[in-house]
């Protein structure tokens, strides 16, 4: 690739950096200048009052509107960004989900009816359920067990980076790697897939792993677990290290077994971290798209909500049905978010 090809991108990059610096710098400046200005003014008023030139402003009544002004000023950027980036799209998606494929006619709730009556889509929903139940459970368990096992072991750093490395691989990259692992060649030919080669070594016949439902969905879930276990392990390992030494020491003095130590001390102490990990992985799993698209493209009964949503809305030009799927996904995420917020609030109070 010669310079002429990348120069437009470089220009865009430079413009982008300049724009970023201007916006952030401007905001910081405003945040600095505006409160100082108000503080100065108030100061001047107070001095004036102290000097006896003007009567003191009736503080109780005036402060309220000014605080509103403050709050409004600080909230404005966030509110604007949320409006553009979140509220407007949500409302538009809701509206689109009540319309037909090209958005020209109102069809009521029939897109939602389709969602729960079409056999293929029901299969999609079941698959998504399988993902959402299994991935957080398995990934967190694996990560937790690993974190406990390597804690204060000799090669802890190396052992941890081994499991954490997959986190650095993109979902699509990981999927391509694993597609090779599951690759199939006919009996008697040289296998290029690791799994089938192992099967052949053990005297079996090579299998078309990705064709058999529901095994194929489980094999795709393995990929996600492979990526996410590292994330769970790192967070949980940090939490385990943060358990106060005196608690552990006290427990040791009371003569706990390793089993009791894990259930009575470690687990309760890292509960908040555990919840964060499970919630994060659950939300990531609900949105799962890349792995399924890369490995099977949703064929052989492996389809999930996010992929079907994309297909309906962008490939089949069925915007209504795509939006209905998006809304459904949105509704599924809400309880998790509420749970998370409540949890955070309880933590702050406690």
């Amino acid at each position: 690739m010669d310079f002429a090809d990348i120069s437009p991108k470089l220009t865009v990059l430079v413009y982008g950096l300049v724009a970023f610096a201007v916006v952030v710098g401007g905001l910081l400046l405003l945040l600095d200048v505006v409160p100082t200005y108000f503080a100065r003014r108030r100061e001047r008023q107070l001095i004036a009052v102290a000097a006896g030139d003007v009567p003191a402003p009736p503080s109780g009544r005036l402060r309220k509107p000014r605080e509103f002004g403050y709050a409004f000023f600080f909230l404005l950027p966030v509110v604007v960004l949320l409006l553009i980036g979140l509220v407007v799209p949500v409302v538009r998606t809701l509206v689109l989900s009540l319309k037909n494929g090209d958005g020209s006619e109102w069809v009521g709730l029939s897109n939602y009816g389709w969602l729960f009556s079409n056999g293929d889509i029901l299969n999609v929903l079941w698959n998504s359920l399988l993902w959402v139940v299994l991935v957080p459970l398995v990934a967190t368990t694996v990560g937790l067990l690993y974190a406990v096992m390597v804690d204060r072991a000799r090669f802890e750093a190396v052992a941890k980076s081994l499991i954490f490395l997959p986190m650095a691989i993109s979902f699509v990259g990981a999927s391509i790697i694993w597609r090779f692992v599951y690759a199939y060649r006919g009996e008697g030919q040289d296998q290029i897939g690791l799994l089938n080669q192992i099967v052949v070594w053990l005297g079996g016949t090579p299998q078309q792993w990705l064709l058999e439902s529901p095994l194929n969905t489980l094999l795709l879930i393995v990929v996600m677990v492979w990526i996410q276990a590292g994330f769970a392990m790192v967070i949980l390992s940090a939490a385990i290290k943060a358990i106060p030494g005196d608690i552990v020491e006290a427990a040791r003095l009371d003569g706990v077994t390793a089993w009791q130590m894990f259930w009575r001390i470690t687990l309760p102490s890292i509960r908040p971290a555990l919840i964060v990990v499970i919630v994060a992985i659950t939300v990531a799993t609900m949105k799962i798209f890349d792995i399924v698209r890369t490995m099977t493209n949703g064929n052989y009964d492996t389809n999930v909500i996010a992929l079907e949503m994309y297909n309906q809305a962008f490939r089949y030009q069925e915007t209504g049905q795509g939006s209905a799927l998006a809304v459904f996904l949105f509704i599924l995420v809400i309880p998790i978010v509420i749970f998370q917020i409540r949890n955070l609030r309880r933590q702050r109070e406690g």
Partner: protein
Amino acid sequence: MAVFPRRRQAIVIATVVGLALSATACGDDSGSGSGNGSSAECSAFEKYSGNDGKKVTIYASIRDTEADLLEQSWESFTDCTGIEIDYEGSGEFEAQLQVRVDGGNAPDIAFIPQPGLLATFANAGKLKAAPADTKASAEANYPADWLKYSTVNGTFYGAPLGSNVKSFVWYSPKTFQEKGYTVPKTWDELIALSNKIADSGEKPWCAGIESGDATGWPATDWLEDLMLRTQTPEVYDQWVTHQIPFNDPKVATALDKAGEILKSDKFVNAGFGPVKSISTTSFQEAGLPILDDKCYLHRQASFYANQWPQGTKVAEDGDVFAFYFPAVDPSKGEPVLAAGEFTVAFADRPEVQAVQNYLATPEYANSRAKLGNWVSGNRGADINNFSNPIDKLSVQILQDQSKVLRFDGSDLMPSAVGAGTLWRGMVDWINGKDTASVLSSVESSWK
């Protein structure tokens, strides 16, 4: 030493600023391309003049080498007229075009390979009718049947650009000669040949329908080819426009006929495994076992010529070549399944129409053909400009007035069917689902 870090900083800053400046300078440079070709060479482009310095954006699915050849093919046009063509190819063309049009960021011209998608944009009022010159040129050089595919409700939207012939079976002329096989002329001969090869203990056919997010499409070509062979072209037209249901017994007959080959463990999947391996074999590598004599027959379009490894001689006397996928009853006419792009415009500025007019002419077809690796159905194109034997054969078939030409059916159907449930249905069909339930599930998705 104390100044060193600062100096280095200064160098970095200077470099960045310099790069930025030179980048913008480059941008300005290419923007002011004006009529600078020699006058003799340019006389052919006089009728497009008067648009010096104007810019036309083109968006299509053609990428990489093919895109380079494309840009090369209109170079003298842009040099002479001063019209700047900004070409962009995307692998996500179909999805992104919709997004761009909805977002008010439509390209001036798009090469759309799916008449179904073209009709969607036409019905939404996004497309501009083709200029009169384009229409005249297209009507003079293409069969009327073919132009129907870019005509929506009586309005003609654009001329065909490139084409490809799908009714081909790839084989190895060398191996055929060694083993004494002859190229079959009828369906029965094709089956007889397959049986002969199978009886010698080898599988004759190889196939693959895996194609990323388009997995399944090669199998739809089989279905379409056999619809054309077991039914009349009129029934085919009724099928793709949903005037007969998708699960009509006629469609079932065609699919079962395809199944005689594709679902027979005796015939497939040479070089890969049992029938089911078809669905996980990528279409790119599906025909390659022909080179190792592991497979003898592979049904795929003319563009498969690009998939052979470098050094493979694609010719009638070479390593690989293709023969016409035979008709069941040649006396009733020989149907040809083909596909290709149509040049449609989202804008009607004079410079856009000039480009559209130029791309519809035989002169353009010749200019592109000379660069190689291209097939056009333009009857005004000179066959001698197509150097590649397979391209030549394709052009001959396309220009042959006795052949009945039909467009790839899945591209004519609504995308939810033609690029959705039908693809998925064909994958299920290969994986063992029976013909009737596959066809009914596709039918139920066609609203």
